[in-house]
């Protein structure tokens, strides 16, 4: 069969960048987006990775991107809603602009990509959508109220969309990573990270391959009976 067409959001760095490398290496047709251009090069990525500069909250830009994908491939097999931002701050010290940004990117962006992807996927009665949650939600981490709340919303979107899209052959699942060493958490003090790692059954940072391993499972054809689920890493 033709290799899957996969769309990954937030690919300029961090986990998204690592996922691009992983799926390009598997020979998938990988499309990505972020607000900034990519500054990296992936071995063998020529022709197999296509980058869009788009903010996931910009409906016009996002729709134009989906329109391009539809014209180019006529289908979308996989969506990985990885783009996300965090705000690590006490609620009393969190400006409303930050609240809007976090909710915009994490909730509105995730919703928009799910909606547009499902429209494309339903034509072929096949699709896999993976959203990004976080252990901050079940652990109810202080200092991460708005971030954890935004990801709680992502979990609810995942569970309800799984029901809405099920009849179209589209599964919707989420992965909830533990801390992974990327820019997202670089401003979190070491003692906070250590105490978080200590609450995990397996006390170490998450690695990129821990994440791609779970996503690979959700993406499998054989996973067509797995939907509306959240897999948290690390044992929390």
């Amino acid at each position, binding site marked *: 069969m033709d290799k899957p067409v996969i769309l990954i959001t937030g690919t300029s760095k961090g986990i998204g960048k690592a996922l691009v490398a992983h799926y390009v290496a598997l020979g998938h047709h990988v499309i990505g987006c972020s607000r900034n251009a990519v500054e990296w090069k992936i071995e063998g990525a020529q022709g197999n990775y296509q980058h869009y500069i788009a903010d996931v909250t910009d409906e016009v830009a996002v729709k134009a991107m989906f*329109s391009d994908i*539809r014209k180019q491939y006529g289908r979308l097999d996989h969506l990985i809603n990885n783009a996300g931002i965090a705000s690590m701050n006490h609620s009393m010290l969190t400006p409303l602009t930050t609240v809007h940004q976090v909710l915009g990117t994490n909730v509105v962006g995730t919703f928009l990509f799910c909606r547009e992807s499902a429209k494309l996927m339903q*034509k072929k009665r096949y699709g896999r959508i993976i959203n990004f949650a976080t252990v901050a939600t079940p652990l109810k981490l202080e200092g991460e109220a708005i971030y954890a709340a935004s990801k709680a919303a992502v979990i609810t979107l995942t569970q309800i969309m799984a029901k809405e899209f099920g009849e179209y052959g589209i599964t919707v699942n989420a992965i909830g990573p533990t801390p992974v060493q990327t820019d997202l958490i670089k401003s979190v003090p070491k003692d906070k990270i250590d105490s978080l790692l200590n609450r995990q059954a397996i006390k170490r940072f998450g690695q990129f391959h821990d994440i791609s391993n779970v996503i690979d499972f959700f993406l499998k054809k054989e996973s067509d009976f797995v939907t509306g689920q959240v897999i948290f890493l690390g044992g929390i």
Partner: protein
Amino acid sequence: MEQKIIGIILHEVSELNEQLDHKVAIENGENAGLYGLTGVLDSLGLVTLIVAVEQAIEDELGLAISLADERAMSQKNSPFRTIGTLADYIVKVSQEEA
């Protein structure tokens, strides 16, 4: 333009009909019932049709329109009753967005 839109809807409905047990009576043309009292589509069928029509309108007329906004869903006289009412609604929406 309305005739072109009716043609697009008819085409998309006939594609959808292939998947349906209760088919839309496209031989009735503009009067063919889609959704609601006189229609045969269930909500899933309606969603599939709306998405297909939006995409076809974009491909053939170069217009990116959203048909299923709150206004459409809450109108007393739903625009999704028949092929004709849907075509009227698309003309209206595309004129507003132009």
